[in-house]
């Protein structure tokens, strides 16, 4: 096992801007990195460069001290000892489940009893051993997903790549598969790279999250850190719930703001350049002394109401409420904590 190093990697397809530019990430051996970003941010291109389907036009990709690719040369995917779960699962429709799972072994010249044992173990791990002789077409979406996973498991790859593997599954199945992925990661110890546009998947699975936007790395940190201290407006909007307010902030204010620091901002006392402030809904509480807001909408979510509140200057704040509130009502709130995004 060795760590995967992306060193100032860039990829230019000749479009108006490079698909990926100067991206540097180190993934420790056995780490679980989620590449998170909106569609078109370049995350899939990064994954395809790690797999070897695309060659970087800049920088280099290394596994330990072995150079996988730079602009001049590259190790083809068939010699990288990596595995991938594709968004479409990419099961070969003309092979049975066992043949699909065992194909990487067959290519490596393993046959007979060893082949059967390895395939059976891999299928056992994803609880599909009873379906070994079936055709992929006869399986449900979740089962196909698990076959694709078993195919990754069978050769003990150095790196496992997952390209939005849950995008085509329903919510219930998603949770189950998230468990399976975590289990798979613990069991195999492989380095895993997981591409997704869904922040909840990224938070639930990864040990580290890399947020990308327009081909660049915006922030790389563990999930808790990224949630609490996002860098910039884009990461703030992408991760978790919350409202981004624009407030005039005096120079030298710390990034984490409490109610004492926030209160003057709403009373028009503060002067300074406008800054983006992220307010999580759970930090907004009812306080008769607080800011007078008007309820714009109240959405019942089961465990609570999700509110959209209009501040006196018209900006929108998000909040939760245990009690029923009606649109148009007045509500005074305090903001216990907020985070300056940049």
């Amino acid at each position: 096992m060795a760590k995967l190093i992306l060193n100032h990697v860039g990829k230019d397809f000749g479009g108006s801007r490079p698909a990926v530019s100067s991206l540097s990430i180190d993934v420790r051996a056995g780490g679980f990195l989620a590449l998170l970003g909106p569609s078109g941010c370049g995350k899939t291109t990064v994954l395809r460069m790690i797999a070897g389907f695309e060659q970087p036009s800049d920088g280099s990709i290394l596994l330990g001290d072995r150079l996988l690719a730079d602009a001049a040369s590259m190790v083809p995917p068939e010699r990288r000892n990596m595995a991938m779960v594709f968004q479409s699962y990419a099961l070969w429709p003309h092979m049975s489940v066992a043949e699909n799972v065992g194909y990487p072994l067959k290519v490596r010249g393993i046959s007979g009893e060893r082949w059967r044992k390895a395939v059976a173990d891999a299928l056992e791990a994803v609880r599909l051993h009873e379906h070994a002789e079936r055709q992929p077409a006869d399986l449900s979406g979740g089962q196909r997903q698990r076959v694709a996973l078993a195919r990754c498991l069978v050769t003990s790859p150095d790196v496992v790549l997952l390209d939005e593997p849950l995008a085509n599954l329903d919510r219930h199945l998603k949770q189950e598969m998230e468990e399976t992925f975590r289990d798979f990661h613990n069991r195999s110890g492989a380095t895993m790279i997981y591409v997704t546009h869904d922040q909840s998947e990224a938070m639930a699975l990864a040990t580290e999250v890399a947020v990308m936007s327009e081909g660049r790395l915006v922030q790389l940190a563990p999930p808790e850190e990224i949630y609490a201290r996002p860098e910039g407006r884009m990461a703030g909007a992408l991760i978790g719930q919350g409202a981004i307010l624009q407030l005039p902030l005096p120079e030298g204010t710390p990034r984490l703001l409490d109610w004492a620091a926030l209160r003057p901002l709403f009373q028009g006392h503060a002067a300074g350049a406008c800054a983006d402030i992220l307010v999580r809904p759970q930090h907004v509480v009812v306080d008769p002394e607080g800011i007078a807001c008007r309820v714009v909408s109240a959405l019942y979510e089961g465990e609570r109401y999700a509110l959209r509140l209009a501040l006196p200057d018209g900006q929108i704040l998000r909040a939760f409420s245990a009690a029923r509130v009606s649109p148009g009502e007045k509500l005074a709130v305090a903001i216990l904590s907020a985070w300056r995004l940049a």
Partner: protein
Amino acid sequence: MTRSASGSSQPRWLLPFVILAVALLSVLPLSRLAVAGFVALWRGDLGGLLADPALWSSLRYTLETALFGTAISVLLGAAFAFLLTLTDLRGRSVLGFLFVLPMMIPPQVTALAWVQMSGPSSPLLKALHIAPPLGSPQPLYSVGGIALLFGVQHAPLVYLALRAGLMALPRDGIEAARLSGASSLQVFRHIVLPLSMPGLIAGAAIAFVSCVGNFGIPAILGIPASIYTLPTLIFSKFSAFSSRTFGEVALLSTAIALISVVGLAVQERVLRGRDYRVIGLAGAVATFRLGGLGLLVAPLLWLLLFFVLVAPFMALLAGALVPAYGVPLTFSTLSFHAFEEVLFRQSATRTAFANSLFLSAATAFGLLLLTLLVGYQLASRRGVLARVLTALVEIPYALPGIVLAVAFILVFAGPLPVLNVTLYGTIWIILIAYFSSFFAVSLKPVVSAFRQLDPALEEAARLSGAGFYRRLADIVVPLVAPAAGASVILVFLIACNELTVSALLWTAGTQTLGVVIYNLDDSGGSDLASALSVLVVVMVVAMMLALEFFGKRLPKGVLPWRS
């Protein structure tokens, strides 16, 4: 390095190989033809040709027959397409299969069958005692006769082009019109008809180009009445070979090619501004209820098919079953003599069987090897090069066969450089011309199957550690196997019945089935020609049914008679 080169790790030789194959089969003969045309112009052959009244009359006949033929095709094809696609008529799929059958039957066989069905010497009419009196003219030996058969032969092309458009009609658009209060007839006039115009125009253009290039029908119906169209004029120029033949023929071929191009350009012109991107749910099937009208329409369609398909085939069969030419057919005189003769005795027909089977099999399987590589390459790359290569493959198929034959004669008339072997007069020149002519037929199913493949399937194999040849054998070829099978049968079917190319390229010993049918009929052996034609029709139908069997597992649009 380009994206595709880094993305798919194909061996280095693949792209140059593909380019070389396309250059040899398409660019070489066409440019040789163009050179011959220019040389003839340079030497002033054009003057002589222009002064020849035969040119002008054949030009007129070509245009007349093609235009009338196209009109008939459009009428027939549009009626069947609308009725079979949009209504709840019973037996739609059988009617559809039967209606497109004439397209796959060789034109000379169609012509022969119709000749056997009409006129004073028709064995069928005589057996039924309804033949016109002896000495009355054969009505089909005329411009009208040629146009009628052009119409029948090419109506399926219009039907298919229109049907493809109709299948893509937005069902919700039609339903919305209904809810807006439009009656069936108004929906048809205001929604269906305007949206199906592009398909109709495209079909008409294909039919026109096919009429212009058709050789079999005017050869059998026109030559006896001294009605020469451009393809038959070229054929007769070759029969009366002189020093100027090559130049003149090159110019005549150019004329055919030009008429075809003008036809397609008119289509392009008319289609411009009619690009209705159909949005919403496609798949308009059985939208209009015929109700009681169906009881009237269905027998009408069957009657039409009877006259277009069944009656000519019965006439052909009757012609094959007479014991000797001119003897009346009754149950007591009925004999299988002609079948025995063509299958077991006549060396010419037996050679033709052997030649056609060899040529078709070699073309079908040889082209498959080529198209697997070319299709793989074309599907994996986008951009100008792929578009140019695809267009170059399609040109020889779009051009009338006679033009291609002339081009190949020009290329191979002299001995090959270095090898010093002359291919002209051997079976190999026909094989090469078939390769060129049917390249597009073979490629289309394979390339559309490749395009449908999820690229991830091959990428998954790469990550599994499989190299290029391994992937080809384990993953790629098995996945396109149904399309490859269809490609082989389709090319075999078309090559087996081909006449136009081989009519110019054959010599004694290398005649094909198409040539022999024509020659037998030409030399008065219409009973033998009919027997051979019956066998050919049976073979065609058998192979089409075999392909129908594959049909469900094939990508859309692979089988020319399905859409």
